[in-house]
């Protein structure tokens, strides 16, 4: 059996290698560019591996965005990004948890409508919503504010969160909850002490997905903010070089690397929690 398994996975491994290279090269390219001096950016002679990796690694670009000329733009943007994305994620996950639980456990009129609406909303092209939102936001004073970004992000992440979480809740056997109720728990206690711990992998998964969606968003960030609530993806577009004719490539790349780091850390921390199968052993098995 075991040898057959190894045999069976070999084609997949072979298939995976080009895909990994394909997705990894742009990231490495970003990293390489962030370490190049302006001279290295302009000339292939300064680089090895066919203009890929700088011969002399420089931290100048990082210095530029944290302490140099671009720090006025970058640091507030980083703070805005963290605040907006964490708030959107926390609010979104809590709302989605209650909604998904109701959808998974209760039968109420309009259940299908909610699910299909959620799905339709997530199919709606984001760019089509931006202009009307911009008009509305400027009229009601939400333009260029933190809540002004959190609200659209919630709309963006909630449908997906609801779908993922309701699938998780549905996978938890009804009996778990009924057992808790017979043991003396109220509905709320059964939810909090049994269902939520069991759905934890699902909650983490949706939290991370929502965080990424908000963290990586560019369209809303650039259209609905000016200088007060601008997040990193939008701020990158406003980086300027030393002169009008010089692109701040190195600085942009350094900022891109910096904003990728929290994402990588999050995945590393939570990858172990995103394993399904925590419910094994609950029922007969």
């Amino acid at each position, binding site marked *: 059996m075991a040898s057959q398994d190894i045999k069976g996975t070999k084609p997949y491994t072979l298939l995976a290698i080009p895909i990994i290279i394909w997705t990894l090269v742009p990231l490495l390219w970003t990293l390489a560019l962030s370490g190049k001096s302006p001279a290295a950016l302009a000339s292939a002679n300064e680089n090895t591996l066919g203009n890929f990796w700088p011969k002399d690694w420089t931290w100048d670009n990082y210095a530029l965005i944290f302490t140099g000329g671009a720090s006025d733009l970058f640091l507030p943007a980083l703070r805005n990004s963290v605040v907006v994305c964490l708030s959107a994620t926390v609010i979104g996950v809590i709302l989605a948890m209650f909604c998904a639980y109701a959808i998974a456990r209760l039968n109420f009129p309009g259940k299908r409508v909610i699910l299909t609406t959620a799905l339709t909303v997530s199919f709606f092209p984001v760019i089509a919503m931006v202009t009307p939102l911009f008009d509305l936001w400027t009229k009601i004073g939400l333009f260029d504010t933190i809540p002004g970004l959190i609200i659209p992000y919630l709309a963006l992440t909630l449908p997906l969160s609801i779908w993922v979480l309701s699938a998780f809740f549905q996978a938890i*056997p009804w*009996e*778990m909850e*009924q*057992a*808790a*109720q*017979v*043991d*003396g*728990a*109220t509905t709320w*206690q059964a939810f909090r*002490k*049994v269902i939520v*711990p*069991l759905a*934890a992998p699902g909650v983490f998964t949706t939290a991370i997905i929502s965080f990424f969606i908000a963290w990586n968003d560019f369209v809303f960030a650039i259209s609905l903010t000016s200088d007060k609530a601008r997040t990193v993806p939008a701020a990158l577009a406003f980086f300027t070089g030393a002169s009008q004719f010089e692109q701040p490539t190195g600085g942009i790349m350094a900022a891109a690397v910096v904003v990728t780091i929290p994402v990588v850390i999050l995945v590393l921390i939570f990858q172990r929690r995103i394993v399904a199968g*925590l*419910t*094994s*052993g*609950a*029922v*007969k*098995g």
Partner: protein
Amino acid sequence: MAEITLKNLVKKYGDGFPAVNDISLDIADGEFMILVGPSGCGKSTLLRMIVGLEDITSGDMLIDGKRVNELAPRDRNLSMVFQNYALYPHLSVFENIAFPLRLAKGHHSEEEITSKVNAASDMLELNEHLERKPANLSGGQRQRVAMGRAIVRDADAFLFDEPLSNLDAKLRGQMRTEISRMQRRLGTTTVYVTHDQTEAMTLGDRVAVLKKGLLQQCASPRELYDQPVNLFVAGFIGSPPMNFLPAQVDGATLRLPFCDVEIGADLAAKVEGKDIVIVGIRPEHIKDASLDDGVQGAAFTAPVDVTEWLGNEQYAYIPFDADPAVRAKLDELDRDLDGEGMRTQIVVNLDARSRIREGDDESFVFDPALMHVFDPESGDCLTRDEAKAKAIAEESEADRRRGLERAKARESKNATT
């Protein structure tokens, strides 16, 4: 400690189908009551109505005389063991058992919880597993944890929903005696749902047989076996099942497929006017005539198709053609009992000494007094002896009380020493 009274309980689902139809039962304090029936008979639904997980459409459900129809499960103070155990996988065995105690906030101190959980785990021999997670336990251990969670608090009654159906045969036998021992020791009212008639017979003080949401008979296992009220109960209780033979009525004679039997005047009066009746004979009541065990009565010769020798006993199968008039009734009964609608045959449970071999014509004998006669239309048993049934019921009730008192005496003796 409580008595549970069900008065005309009805459960109708959205489509109007009555899953439980007008069931009334009195479950005495400390009694072990079994709800048994083939799949889809409403036994689990009834149990879930008792515990409060299923709404009651109409009727009254009383615990110690108090109506609890509208109470939530947590306010009924009953504990339940689920078919799939429903352990909390994120909690250790100790915390699983302690869960009901922790929910009753402020009622128990930490020491009390520890001592109660330890007492339960002692009883169920779970001591070395207390720190493990349910995922790492075997089926039997999980089952014991589920029971521990049920017995740890002083619930008024225990409810079991087919607790042994996920275990293998050997473990099932062990757990069965374990449950029986535990119930006697604790003397707690217990309602136990099963589809397995062996569990029903061995565990129950009384057994309620259900069919399609209707209560057929509620009596001690002995009474069910000896004095069934109808064809369904007779066919359901006993393994191998009772043989049903069509019999033509001819005055005071019943013409069975292989022989004629004279019947008494009482029975003759009851079957008068009927062309045909169904006769039920338990497999062990038919004997090998050649062994000469002193059984007198109706003798017949029939071809044996197949024999199965099991060491301590053997089964012989005699195929016969059922009268088309009762064939439909027998087929229907077979379907009700989750059967496969196979050929009609007589099963004979023979002594292991018998030299009967398959393929031969052999002679058998049975005592007509042990025969049950059923009305083919209604399925009612015409030979049921009410006086005898009452005597059996009183005897079993007396046995039960004695058993409980013995257990209580032993318990108080243990407590003092």
